[in-house]
């Protein structure tokens, strides 16, 4: 009789790698194998995505970050103890004992205890206001402390330190400092020149960087008040995050007498076996090939190796690639392969553009055939391409500098990925190759990122491979003869531009008509607002009349921006940022009467938050009676035209920038476009209105005005480029007319002008040729189309205020005038704010 024995496996640590091990073990288990899994976790919650921990500050909840819910463990028969660390291992009897006294027997023990933040012994580290950055609890503490803090610092200018510093800035601290012991930032990943460029980029984001600083003492009473450095300088701060490196959690292994390294880490061989053959160590606690791999992809690979071994497979953990791309710090940084290798062992190509803050370096083999490594700062768009080219030893083109120079548009990149061999590893976190992805697309019919994620997990780890996965989907579909067009959605088999032409030629004015004539099905949240925007750009008729109200995005439908909690914000237009005291008083009175939070916006106007849906018409009635108009803050349309005070008051001003800004804003107000439009006018070359960061910006010169276009602030800042020099006002407006209409007609949905230009073949010189030199002969038509839109402009809010039928729609309930009882606010600095997401 064959005796089926159960293999008892105990996992210590329920972090990312410990979880991945369980998942892989279940997947690889043989039908004949009986396995029992017990997991001990020290943290109070099941494993979550630590790599994207910072997104917790951006609104993700602990639940969103969870890798698999508690039911997953239950459903798979895994016994899990949380908040209960293992405190003792009895290797002789193969028992572990937990803090709460639970004793479990093992056949194999997996140590996945990860690492903790390394905290140097500086006097004063125990003070309140000093944190580390590792767990959700750490972030909760930081978040609540940051509410009352003004100046924060981070010790450590590495990968994690910079991410933490950016997080402090995003949490609203007035100052965020980075204190680094070395002479430059990220010394382990990038070279000297890259560090310098990164530093200047981070400084322009508002971070203060201090190099070669040795923190001697943390000063203060119970709470931190400042940092004293060895060079006698002092930095006043009221909170500090320590991110000076990681320390493998090997304390338990040491107690158990396993072999550990003097500088930390449980020593393992290339099977991840420790000095005890029944105990394995994986993830950040393991020291393999003489190093700690502080990244998730090698951790997952370790989990895979051990899972394979325990289920009868054979696999080896090989030295792993340490390429990284930094996320979330507002500027791109990446390094891959061997970034530091020097001539003559390679040929190095460098590219530096100080104005744009870009530094790139690639190291090519001396024979020019393969890529050995490189560094990207400021623009890492080619990271995935280069990484794969490097890893797969793809033969390079003769002019290898093309790899980092020259604009490689989306299509070229697609062709690039398709030239990789089938076994090229695309998602290193989940070990998915190009061949597997092509199969997903061709044979399993997974044509979207979402379905690919579900079916083979590619892209669910660090997420860095997603752009390439997209390229592979498109590339494979193309190879299969599927003609891929940027069609709107399942209801319209046309691109935005095609649909715009069709709607225009046929004079269609309602969504129902457009859907009946050119679409199928019942529409959706993608095509409805898109058609709404086309109709508005073509005819500029009220967006709430006929069948158009329910096809607007929620913000457009209620002519206000929906905010956290379900209330709305109100933004009256203040052209050029000029406002009379009388009008200001009315805004104050309205805010008082309806209990609104008030804030000055970045676009020189005033935003009133927290309005109940049902109050909106009355609020606007009061504002309109005082002479205000809708500010269209809710629409994909012209927002503001900022201005500096110009020659009327400023001693440097050479033209009256305010008057021109008001004229420009009044001309284009209400204009609907593929995305929002921002503008500014500066009174002289000093550029106080920041016109070069706008979709169109105007700067006064001695002789007239310079016009810049296609700039962008936001998450991917881009400077505007010069379109015309020293033109008079009329010419300037005519050029803007043409530019805007050309954009409206040809841009993809939700593409800002900067993105539109970046994708345009021929780029700026082509745009100039069309707008200024009229090579297409369409200038007159563009101008008259725009003039038509200006002629029919009406204030949308005035229409609603004057129309009882439309007013009726502004009520939370259809059967009672009551307000939404679930809306809740919190107090903050004598005003209110929306309650946090539950």
């Amino acid at each position: 009789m064959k005796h089926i024995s159960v293999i008892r496996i105990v996992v210590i640590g329920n972090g990312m790698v410990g979880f991945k091990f369980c998942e892989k073990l279940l997947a690889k288990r043989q039908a004949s194998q009986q396995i029992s899994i017990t997991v001990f976790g020290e943290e109070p919650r099941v494993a979550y995505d630590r790599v994207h921990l910072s997104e917790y500050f951006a609104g993700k909840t602990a639940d969103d970050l969870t890798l698999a819910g508690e039911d997953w463990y239950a459903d798979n028969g895994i016994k899990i103890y949380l908040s209960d660390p293992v405190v003792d291992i009895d290797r002789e009897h193969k028992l572990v004992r937990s803090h709460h006294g639970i004793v479990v027997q093992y056949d194999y023990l997996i140590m996945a205890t990860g690492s903790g933040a390394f905290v140097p012994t500086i006097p004063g580290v125990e003070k309140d206001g000093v944190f580390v950055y590792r767990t959700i609890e750490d972030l909760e503490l930081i978040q609540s402390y940051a509410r009352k803090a003004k100046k924060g610092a981070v010790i450590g200018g590495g990968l994690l330190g910079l991410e933490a510093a950016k997080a402090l800035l995003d949490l609203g601290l007035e100052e965020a400092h980075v204190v680094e012991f070395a002479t430059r930032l990220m010394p382990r990943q990038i070279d000297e020149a890259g560090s310098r460029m990164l530093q200047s980029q981070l400084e322009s984001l508002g971070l203060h960087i201090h190099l070669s600083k040795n923190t001697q003492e943390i000063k203060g009473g119970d709470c931190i008040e400042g940092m004293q450095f060895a060079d006698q300088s002092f930095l006043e701060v009221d909170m500090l995050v320590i991110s000076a490196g990681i320390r493998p959690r090997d304390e338990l292994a040491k107690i158990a007498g396993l072999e550990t390294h003097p500088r930390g880490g449980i020593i393992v061989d290339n099977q991840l076996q420790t000095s005890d053959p029944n105990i394995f160590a994986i993830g950040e606690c393991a020291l393999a090939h003489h190093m700690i791999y502080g990244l998730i992809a090698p951790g997952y690979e370790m989990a895979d190796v051990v899972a394979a071994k325990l289920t009868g497979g054979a696999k080896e953990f090989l030295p792993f690639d340490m390429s990284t791309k930094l996320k979330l710090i507002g500027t791109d940084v990446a390094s891959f392969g061997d970034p530091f290798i020097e001539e003559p062992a390679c040929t190095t190509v460098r590219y530096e553009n100080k104005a744009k803050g870009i530094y790139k370096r690639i190291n090519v083999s001396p024979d020019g055939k393969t890529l050995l490594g490189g560094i990207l700062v400021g623009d890492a768009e080619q990271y995935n391409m280069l990484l794969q080219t490097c890893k797969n030893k793809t033969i390079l083109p003769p002019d290898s500098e093309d790899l980092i120079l020259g604009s490689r548009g989306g299509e070229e990149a697609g062709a690039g990925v398709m030239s990789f061999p089938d076994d090229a590893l695309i998602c290193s976190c989940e070990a998915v190759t190009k061949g597997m992805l092509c199969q997903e697309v061709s044979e399993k019919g997974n044509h979207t990122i979402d379905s690919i994620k579900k079916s083979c997990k590619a892209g669910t780890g660090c997420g860095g491979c997603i752009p390439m996965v997209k390229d592979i989907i498109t590339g494979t579909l193309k190879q299969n003869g599927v003609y891929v067009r940027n069609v709107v959605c399942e209801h319209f088999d046309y691109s935005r531009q095609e649909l715009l032409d069709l709607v225009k030629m046929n004079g269609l004015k309602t969504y129902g008509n457009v859907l009946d004539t050119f679409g199928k099905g019942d529409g959706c949240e993608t095509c409805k607002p898109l058609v709404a925007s086309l109709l508005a750009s073509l005819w500029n008729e009220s967006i709430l009349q006929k069948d158009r109200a329910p096809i607007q995005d929620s913000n457009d439908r209620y002519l206000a921006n929906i905010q956290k909690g379900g209330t709305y914000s109100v933004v009256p237009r203040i052209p050029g940022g000029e406002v009379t005291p009388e009008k200001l008083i009315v805004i104050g009175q309205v805010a008082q009467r309806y209990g609104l939070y008030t804030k000055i916006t970045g676009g020189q106007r005033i935003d009133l938050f927290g309005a109940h849906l049902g109050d909106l018409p009355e609020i606007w009635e009061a504002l309109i009676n005082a002479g205000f108009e809708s500010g269209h803050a809710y629409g994909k349309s012209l927002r503001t035209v900022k201005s500096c005070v110009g020659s009327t008051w400023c001693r440097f001003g050479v033209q009256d920038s305010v008057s021109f800004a008001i004229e420009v804003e009044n001309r284009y107000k209400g204009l609907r476009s593929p995305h929002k439009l921002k503008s500014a006018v500066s009174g002289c070359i000093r550029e106080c209105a920041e016109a070069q960061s706008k979709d169109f910006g105007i700067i006064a010169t001695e002789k007239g005005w310079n016009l810049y276009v296609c700039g962008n602030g936001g998450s991917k800042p881009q400077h505007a480029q010069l379109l015309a020099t020293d033109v008079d006002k009329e010419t300037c407006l005519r050029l803007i007319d043409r530019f805007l209409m050309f954009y409206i007609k040809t841009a993809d949905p939700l593409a800002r002008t900067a993105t539109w230009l970046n994708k345009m073949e021929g780029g700026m010189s082509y745009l100039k040729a069309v707008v200024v030199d009229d090579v297409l002969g369409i200038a007159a038509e563009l101008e008259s189309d725009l003039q038509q839109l200006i002629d029919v402009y009406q204030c949308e809010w005035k229409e609603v205020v004057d129309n009882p039928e439309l007013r009726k729609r502004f009520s939370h309930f259809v059967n009672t005038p009551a307000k939404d009882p679930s809306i809740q606010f919190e107090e903050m600095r004598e005003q209110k704010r929306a309650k946090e997401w539950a």
Partner: protein
Amino acid sequence: MNTETQTPTDTQVTWHIACEVSDIPEDGGGCAFIDGKQIAIFNFARRGEWYATDNECPHRQQMAVSRGMIGSHEGEPKVACPFHKKTFSLKTGQCFNDDAYQIKTFPVMVRENLVYIGL
């Protein structure tokens, strides 16, 4: 408007008057307060169908489903929450983007210009 019933009528439900037909925009939604609950009601005029669901979106507990856009996904009627665009089947309430989320659906009956919801 003709007398019509949508969604399978359960004999156990109690019918509540929610509003008049004209209170809900065609191909749009509105929210009614019934029995202490917020119910989202949709007039899917294009399909000649009515639907009712929870007004609260399970993703971030926002009372906003009634303000969402309706449409179809491979023929199945759906609504998209305006906050983060999670979409839900109007027939089953199942979320299309994330299996973990689901909203309740309720039967709707339209008689003599009045909209009734079965709870």
